[in-house]
């Protein structure tokens, strides 16, 4: 399976049209306002490699157990404050997924990092198609007012992923290179990959996640593990 990109679960959709992503290791010569909350211990390639190549069945098995209840069910992401429905994730055991958001369905592949000390497993999502060309009139309504950097206008969002950890920053779009500006689209960001930490949850669970890379509201996302696929 060739890793491509994944849709991040949550609220990123709210920032539709703002985002950007910079490849791991890129320098960002611009002031940054962090979007992501505390960067917790990242996973490494161990589990992913194990799951793909069978090098460590124990590590792979542990990650698979954590994700077990996600398979065949729907992870719903919602605004932490409004509770508005923002995205649905169908994770498949074969390393593929379908993510549904106001822009439609998105097919993709995911990679799984090592289980973290807090028991969560980072899942990095990669959309297959970066930017679908949508006819005029089909654009979803913006879900939120774009963030503004004082004195510099509307912010863009840059995300970078390293070792199964994605962190995002609000930046001044005027300071971005052409390549970086291209990366500010939601589609490109998810095509390049967004990592979300997932914990072992039971079907029917509802919780708030405060270390997603792009929390929708109030610095966190509301998540629901809904039975079945919807």
């Amino acid at each position, binding site marked *: 399976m060739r890793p491509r990109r994944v849709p991040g679960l949550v609220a990123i959709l709210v920032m539709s049209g703002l985002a950007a992503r910079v490849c791991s290791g890129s320098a960002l010569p611009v002031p940054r306002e962090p979007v992501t909350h505390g960067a917790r211990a990242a996973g490494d390639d161990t589990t992913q490699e194990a799951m793909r190549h069978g090098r460590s069945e124990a590590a792979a098995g542990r990650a698979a157990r954590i994700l077990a209840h996600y398979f065949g069910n729907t992870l719903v992401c919602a605004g932490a404050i409004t509770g508005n429905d923002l995205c649905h994730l169908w994770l498949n055991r074969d390393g593929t997924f379908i993510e549904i958001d106001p822009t439609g369905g998105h097919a993709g592949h995911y990679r799984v990092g090592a289980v973290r000390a807090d028991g969560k497993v980072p899942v990095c999502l990669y959309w297959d198609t970066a930017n679908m060309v949508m006819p005029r009139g*089909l654009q979803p309504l913006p879900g939120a007012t774009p963030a503004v950097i004082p004195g510099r206008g509307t912010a863009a969002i840059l995300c970078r992923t390293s070792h199964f950890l994605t962190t995002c920053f609000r930046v001044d779009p005027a300071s971005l290179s052409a390549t970086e500006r291209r990366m500010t689209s939601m589609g490109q960001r998810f095509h390049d990959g967004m990592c979300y930490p997932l914990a072992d949850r039971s079907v029917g669970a509802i919780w708030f996640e405060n270390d997603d890379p792009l929390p929708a509201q109030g610095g966190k996302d509301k998540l629901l593990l809904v039975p079945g696929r919807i």
Partner: protein
Amino acid sequence: MAAVVAGLSAGACRAAVPGASAVLTHYYGNSLVCRDEKTRAICHVWLDADGRYYAFYDLGARGKPAGIHGPFEIEGREGRYTLRGRSGAFEVCLQPQPPMKIGAERAHELFSQAACYPLSRRRVGDQWELEWQGVRYTLWLLAGR
């Protein structure tokens, strides 16, 4: 005249039905998008060559926040389809995977129910109009998924 193209059912699908893949070839790997011109609900439909399909809906803001059992603004469903045709006109017959009943189905949105829907040969980039059960829809065939 009897059906020209029949039974693209689940496993046996296109290869077993000469001409069927020609009708749907540009749909595979791409997105059929529809917009209900009354409710403005939007659907995205994926047809796979193996007889599976997926339909996704954006129904617009719901009256209250989503819970475990909804209501959901965004919905998806999957199932199997068959293709049948008469005299050059084709229908794609959807059989959604039970058991969940989604809001789009309650609203009788296009492609949301176990029913047959008119479909014709299209190319990526095409836009057309369709009236189904008294409701007017605009459809697009867009590249990618």
